[in-house]
């Protein structure tokens, strides 16, 4: 079986697995990184959302062979350490302050999607987010945490506009 060389949460890893196995199963079943959740496997629910080179993506829909060894994959487990400074990522801090999570299943994906949206806005020099931009987030939350997700993104954007924080690998 081919050996896949990956960079996950800042660590170089090697896994024996076929090229066409989707990254989500490599993360969850072979590397025991279970923060990215399996909801649909179809790029629909967004619960697996993670970052590759600082951009949000769906590991359920990426054959592992598509990744280069230098691509920086960051899952919710590695988010805090993928930015400068101690402690959690600012989005995680705000998420806790706003008490966003209910059952929690969708929340790793919600947070990673929020990080991506906020980084994109900041890179464009924006300090605000429109209702339409919030509407465009596709992450399903069956608990209905959506209103607090909106509030938390607005607050995290305000915090990060003061002190911009970009995830390692962003801009590549």
């Amino acid at each position, binding site marked *: 079986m081919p050996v896949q060389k990956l960079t996950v949460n800042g660590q170089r890893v090697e896994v024996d697995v076929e090229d*066409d196995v*989707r*990254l*989500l199963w490599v993360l969850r079943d072979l590397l025991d990184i279970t923060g990215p959740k399996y*909801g*649909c*496997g*179809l*790029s*629909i*629910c*967004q619960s697996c*959302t993670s970052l*590759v080179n600082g*951009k*949000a*993506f*769906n*590991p*359920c*829909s*990426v*054959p592992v062979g*598509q990744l280069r060894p230098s691509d920086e994959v960051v899952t919710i487990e590695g988010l805090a350490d993928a930015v400068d400074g101690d402690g959690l990522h600012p989005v995680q801090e705000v998420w806790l302050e706003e*008490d966003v999570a*209910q059952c929690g299943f969708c929340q790793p994906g919600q947070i990673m*999607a929020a990080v*991506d949206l906020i980084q994109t806005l900041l890179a464009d020099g924006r300090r605000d987010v429109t*209702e339409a931009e*919030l*509407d*465009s*987030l*596709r*992450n*399903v939350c*069956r*608990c*209905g*945490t*959506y*209103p*607090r*997700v*909106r509030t938390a993104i607005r607050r995290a954007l305000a915090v990060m506009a003061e002190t911009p924080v970009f995830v390692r690998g962003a801009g590549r």
Partner: protein
Amino acid sequence: MFRTGSMRNIYSPNVVTARELAIDQVAAEVGRDPLELRLSTLRDARSVAVLEKVAEAGSWGREMPAGTAQGLGFHSEYKGRAACLIEIDCRPETVSRTVPTAAYAYTGPRVTRAIYAVDVGLTINPRGLEAQMLGGMMDGIANCLSFSLHLVDGAFAEDSWEHAYYTRQWNVPFETQVFILDSSSQPGGAGEFGVAASMAATANAYARATGSMPTSFPINHGMPLAESIVPPGTIPQSPTDGLGRR
């Protein structure tokens, strides 16, 4: 044969919505204000308090543009009382809006503001209670407007969340508020207590905005469905374009 499951708040949203629509009809018939009629017929102070709270916080009766309106819903269950005030936008430009990231064929009316007041008796964790009411409102809005399955030729047309239109960010009200009323009553339940009054209030708001009372739910049910990505009866392979999707 197909498997069935339970919906949050089971039968209450449907029953309460039918009743609350009927009360608005009676009010219209006898020329009385829907809030005033409810307040004059409810018999206990806790019921009056939740309704008065949403009416005050939501400025019941305020002027709104044609095609938009407010609606009220009241519900009593789990030893508690709940009321909801919804503002809805049913104008053509809203109803036909598209979401660039979504496969929705039809988005439909948008709830723009949702205000909830609840008395569950003694409250231990107010933030948790507020979260349950917010989640319940998302369910109530979906039950009224968008969330259903279509049985077509013996199979469900919906293959995934993309096509079963539970509330997504593009259906979420721009403003939500939850008021927890002080209460010395016995603690009751709260996990499902946000659904029924918000479904009813959404239905009444829709009726007032469009001038026609909805009689089957969800209101979007007859509208075109998004094209299915999964051929019926198959288990699809995961896509391979995830690097470019979000």
